[in-house]
């Protein structure tokens, strides 16, 4: 019985700093979230190892609410501050990926066509 109590006390002593760390981190992220303006683009990393991009739509003392940036709309994610590892601001691209591909292909085609034209023209000098 004595051993069990000893183990329990040691476990509590070891866990206490971790808990304190978690609480301090949570407070830090709460302060950070409060400073982020609504609908700001962010990348949130979680203690589970997962991360996702989204828009901060609200924060209070208990949770951070993030609208995930997905193709098909998903429900808001409500995150406890203790689950947050990092919150990074993200710049939003004005173009969607498909537009970027189209522009890239267009530029590549124009360059190749231009080189071919130059080669053709130089052949007649």
């Amino acid at each position, binding site marked *: 019985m004595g051993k069990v109590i000893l183990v329990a006390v040691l476990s509590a002593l070891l866990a206490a700093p971790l808990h304190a760390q978690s609480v301090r981190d949570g407070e830090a992220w709460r302060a950070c979230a409060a400073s982020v303006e609504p609908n700001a683009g962010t990348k949130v990393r979680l203690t589970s190892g997962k991360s996702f991009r989204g828009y901060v739509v609200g924060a209070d003392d208990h949770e951070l609410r993030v609208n995930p940036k*997905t*193709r*098909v*709309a*998903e*429900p808001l994610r409500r995150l406890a501050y203790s689950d947050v590892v990092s919150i990074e601001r993200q710049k939003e691209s004005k173009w*969607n*990926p*498909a*537009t*970027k*591909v*189209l522009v890239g*292909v267009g530029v590549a085609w124009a360059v190749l066509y231009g080189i071919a034209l130059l080669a053709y023209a130089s052949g007649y000098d």
Partner: protein
Amino acid sequence: MNGLTLGLVLAAMVAASPASAQQPELKKWDAGASFGLVFGDGWYPATDSYGEPQPAYHLELGRFWNTHLKTDTAIILTHRHEGYDYTTFALPNVPGAYSFTRHDRQLTAVSGAMTYQFFENQMMHPFVSGGLQVAAATNHRYRDAETYTINRVTYTVPKLDQRSTDVVVRPFVAVGAKSYFNERTFIKSEFSAAVGGGGFSHAILRLGFGVDF
């Protein structure tokens, strides 16, 4: 008993509703059309290569089995390719005897593939794919009877009108990406390479539009 059944059904509905609300409804099918260039002529193993890429059109349909795995089928259509075959042959006292034969080639293929799509519910999904292309390659070789003269020796090449259709199977692998404009409409860019009995057969580079439904 009826009351119990009703209660169970209601309980199931109540339990199911929040769970289903958490998951977005992703479309199970996609379809598209694309334009591409075929490099290499491994689909026509018995003919000479001219080296230039040939245009090809894909009409395709895909069925998602989960958020990552998909079955793809496609019809591949090509233009009729017209050209000449230059053939040399041995004749007594005629060094370098030759003839020209016209050919019209056309290829129609179907393909089936399994595709793994990376990421979930994002605006861009890279993918890898592998499968089989089965092509019907038609070849029409023809010429009129012609008379040539080399070193004052005259020879006649007989008329030819030969049609053949080869069914060719080519395994292929592909990499590419689906890049979305919005929730459902996308551009698909893909590079695929196929192999035949003698190694590399052909490659296709293509770009097309599609929609999830």
